[in-house]
């Protein structure tokens, strides 16, 4: 691996800034927040999937000693909220749409009293017809989950229709004509289940109303400014009256993007006149959080005799559950994923987010990535095998290259799929694809965006010569902000140890689009660069005046401003400027504009052209016990283009963790439903990989520099989670000769497929 070591701080394997706090237990997380006089909140949730509320009686709860407040929809503003469609009530009003929908909230002096009180609430329902899966919800005469859907506020570009929360399309060429001229057309259907992000810290929120009527909220949510804006909407207050603080976060992976418990804490605290804290239970996490959508993807691909892709048609259906959540964006982004990093002259791709009577969904690391990639990359292998072409060769024959355009007609640059594929193939030993009975290797490639959105930072130069970075992006655990601090340190000529992060507090740190979408180190890093440039100028001007030289002659080296013989420490500059003019604080901002695209190709799509895409390839060797269907991942290799590795250790950590999550989705993770109810809502039954399930993961960092990223970096965090599902499916197919079309690939499915296969190779 190339080590980018011409720099002093970036490109180096430096320990993350928060590591000492985390290994000593002194890091404070959302679940740790405690306030004087604090009460504990619990929610009473719907036991039925779709019904009108006939009776709701909270008096039994109020009669319990220690209960301080009980609220229902009648006690609060009737605002609906949601990131794409404002369809979700805070508490159910006239009807419930999923098992687990909050009906009332209770605050009491202890969590156990609150729980007892919530359980004492009485409710009766009149059942409504249900739609538990998208096909039912899309059928003629299906129950409409949101009779008032047309009146909901929504993102203006969304196309909605009753149970269809959004319908996006990417189209160019003419697929039907192209299919008619193809040597072969392949059609397959793939499905994936609802999976949970599985962060180890449950969602938690604590709220306190201040004497002046302002609200303070402590949350472990990923987007403090979105929490603030959503609360302002729900509570009908100006944003400036809501202060959001984020202490540590015990993982998010997208599952903590959307508001979760903050509004209940705020409303209960207002009703009780005391601070209120809520922590989601494990059962609530698995039955009523914001997991990844289940998907159903139908893919038709037409090829010439030599395997050239000529046309692709896809219908992607995302089951967004009872409320749209992140479903519209996920269904739309799926279209770029199913197009894949391939040249395809004719495309017709439709993405639908569909309401069902299941728990609402959100975002989970690379939203539509694993689902779409599973479909495309499984089908690429099917096509290769059918045409008698090596799967690697089929990919190399069709991948996009520099100067090609993406599905929306956007120009592509810094394209590195070939390098990723070749490096992954070489590392796994692709020339021996079926090394023995029951053993096989799989490969898959893909692409992903470095999400845009604006970042603001301030950088304060302290009187001891250190710098403080203030950002509204939060440290989820990825280490992205250590990366941003490395960029800042590099630019200021300081060691990393001289940079620290300001606490996240919307009253004190600038806006940031947030820790999401593989953008944090990239975007905050660039904003920090801009702030550093401004600071350098001001330091140089100050030093130049003192030295009696021109500012251009002053450079920053080892914590000093230097010009020839002249030398002054940055600490001294900071101290003197503090005395003379209130100190040195600089603002920096950054936004990565999307590339130009052909608007005629893209309909009703919130992200028509991806900013700074990254490319990657995964390869695995799997052994399958053909007696039991049990699969063991023997080796796993990732070649990922990171543009520039700001911190190789941190990036490897992202790759290893993302692959582990991807392997969970490939092999064991699934929320299982019976009539809309999650039946495996414990961590014993919802099977996330343990240390014994994850093989050592070999990371190859490809550095194909981007134009826009700091030092050429590209987004890193989400991609590792995209390809594992397809990679494992392809490896299992190579090992056994059977193809599994639905995730997870359980031993049962593999065994059944082997039994049904006429010519098992194992």
């Amino acid at each position, binding site marked *: 691996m190339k080590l980018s070591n011409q720099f002093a701080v970036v490109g180096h*394997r430096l*320990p*993350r800034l*928060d*590591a*000492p*706090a*985390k*290994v*000593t*237990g*002194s*890091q*404070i*997380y959302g*679940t*740790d927040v*405690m306030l004087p006089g604090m009460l504990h909140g619990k929610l009473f949730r719907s036991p039925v999937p779709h019904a009108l509320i006939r009776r709701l009686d909270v008096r039994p709860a109020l009669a319990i000693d220690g209960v301080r407040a009980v609220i229902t929809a009648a006690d609060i503003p009737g605002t609906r909220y949601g990131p794409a469609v404002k369809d979700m009530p805070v508490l159910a009003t006239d009807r419930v749409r999923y098992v687990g929908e909050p009906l009332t909230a209770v605050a009491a002096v202890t969590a156990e009293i609150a729980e007892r009180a919530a359980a004492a609430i009485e409710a009766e329902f009149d059942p409504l017809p249900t739609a538990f899966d998208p096909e039912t919800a899309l059928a003629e005469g299906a129950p409409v989950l949101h009779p008032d859907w047309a009146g909901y506020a929504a993102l203006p570009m969304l196309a909605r229709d009753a149970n269809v929360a959004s319908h996006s399309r990417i189209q160019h060429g003419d697929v039907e004509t192209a299919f008619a001229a193809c040597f072969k057309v392949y059609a397959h259907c793939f499905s994936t289940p609802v999976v949970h*992000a*599985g*962060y*180890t*810290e*449950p969602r938690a929120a604590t709220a306190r109303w201040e004497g002046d009527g302002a609200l303070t909220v402590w949350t472990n949510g990923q987007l403090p400014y979105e929490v603030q804006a959503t609360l302002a909407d729900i509570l009908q207050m100006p944003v400036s009256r809501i202060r959001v603080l984020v202490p*540590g*976060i*015990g*993982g998010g*992976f997208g599952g903590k993007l959307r508001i979760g418990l903050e509004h209940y804490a705020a409303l209960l605290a207002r009703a009780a006149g005391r601070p209120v804290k809520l*922590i989601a*239970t*494990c059962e609530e996490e698995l039955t009523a959080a914001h997991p990844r959508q289940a998907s159903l993807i139908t893919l038709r691909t037409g090829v010439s005799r030599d395997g050239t892709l000529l046309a692709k048609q896809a219908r992607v259906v995302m089951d967004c559950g009872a409320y749209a959540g992140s479903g519209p964006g996920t269904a739309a982004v799926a279209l770029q994923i199913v197009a894949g990093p391939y040249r395809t002259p004719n495309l017709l791709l439709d993405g639908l987010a569909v309401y069902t009577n299941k728990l609402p969904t959100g975002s989970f690391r690379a939203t539509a990535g694993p689902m779409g990639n599973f479909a495309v990359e499984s089908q690429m292998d099917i096509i290769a095998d059918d045409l008698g072409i090596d799967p690697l060769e089929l990919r190399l024959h069709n991948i996009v290259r520099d100067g090609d355009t993406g599905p929306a007609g956007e120009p592509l640059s810094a394209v590195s799929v070939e390098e990723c594929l070749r490096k992954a193939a070489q590392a796994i030993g692709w020339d021996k694809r079926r090394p023995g009975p029951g053993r096989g290797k799989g490969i898959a490639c893909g692409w992903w965006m470095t999400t845009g959105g604006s970042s603001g930072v301030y950088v304060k130069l302290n009187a001891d010569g250190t710098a403080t970075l203030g950002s509204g992006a939060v440290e*989820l*655990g*990825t*280490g992205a902000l250590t990366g941003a601090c490395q960029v800042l340190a590099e630019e200021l000529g300081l060691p990393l140890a001289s940079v620290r992060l300001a606490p996240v507090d919307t009253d004190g740190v600038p806006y940031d689009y947030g820790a999401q979408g593989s953008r944090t180190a990239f975007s905050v890093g660039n904003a920090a660069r801009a702030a550093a440039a401004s600071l350098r100028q001001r330091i140089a001007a100050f030093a130049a005046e003192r030295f009696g030289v021109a500012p251009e002659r002053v450079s920053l080296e080892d914590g000093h401003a230097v010009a020839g013989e002249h030398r002054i420490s940055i600490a001294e500059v900071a101290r003197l400027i503090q005395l003379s003019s209130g100190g040195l604080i600089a603002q920096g901002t950054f936004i990565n504009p999307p590339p130009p695209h052909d608007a005629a190709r893209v309909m009703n799509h919130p992200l028509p052209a991806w900013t700074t895409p990254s490319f990657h390839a995964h390869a695995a060797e799997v052994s399958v016990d053909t007696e039991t269907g049990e699969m063991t991942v023997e080796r796993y290799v990732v070649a990922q283009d990171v543009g520039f590795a700001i911190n190789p*250790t*941190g990036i*490897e*950590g992202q*790759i*290893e*963790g*993302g*692959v*582990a*999550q991807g392997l969970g989705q490939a092999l064991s993770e699934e929320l299982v439903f019976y009539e809309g109810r999650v039946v495996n809502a*414990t*961590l*014993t039954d919802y099977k*996330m990989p*343990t*240390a*014994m399930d*994850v093989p*050592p*993961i070999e990371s190859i960092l490809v550095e194909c520099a981007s134009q826009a990223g700091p030092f050429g970096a590209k987004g890193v965090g989400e991609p590792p989670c995209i390809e594992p599902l397809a990679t494992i499916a392809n490896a299992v197919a190579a090992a056994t000769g059977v193809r599994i079309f639905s995730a997870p690939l359980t031993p049962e499915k593999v065994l059944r497929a082997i039994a049904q296969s006429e010519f098992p190779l194992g």
Partner: protein
Amino acid sequence: MNKLPLLLRINGEMHDVLVEQYWSLLHVLRDVLGLTGTKENCLEAECGVCTVLLDGKAVNSCILLAVQCRGRDILTVEGLGRPGNLHKLQQAFIDYGAAQCGYCTPGMLLVAKSWLDEHPGVVPEPDAVREAIAGTLCRCTGYQKIVDAICSAAARVQEPG
């Protein structure tokens, strides 16, 4: 309710507390004593983030009654090592990038410590470490850097505190 007086020895210090007999050790540590370094998640001994050492053995404090700990030695992450005097496992976790979000880290550290203490002088094979920590879920790291850190710590001599 009639709370019971209980004397707990935690990180070498005595704590006099009044507890309900059904309270878990985790609840007493976090919510009564404010020792929040021990984390809470599933509360049913499935995730392992609440692991502490009881007489040197790793236990899930979420399903251990506080009253069962009378007269026994409890070690939490706060007692493992402090800045300037870190336990070798803590230093290795920093050096290897073994903590990401850090929420499982206290539990991982204590599980690892109990394993190292039970196998003095052994530099473990990675698979033995994977088995030792299999009861603690980590969703960030894929476990690799945790395994590397524990193997490396096993080979290090603990600096005298």
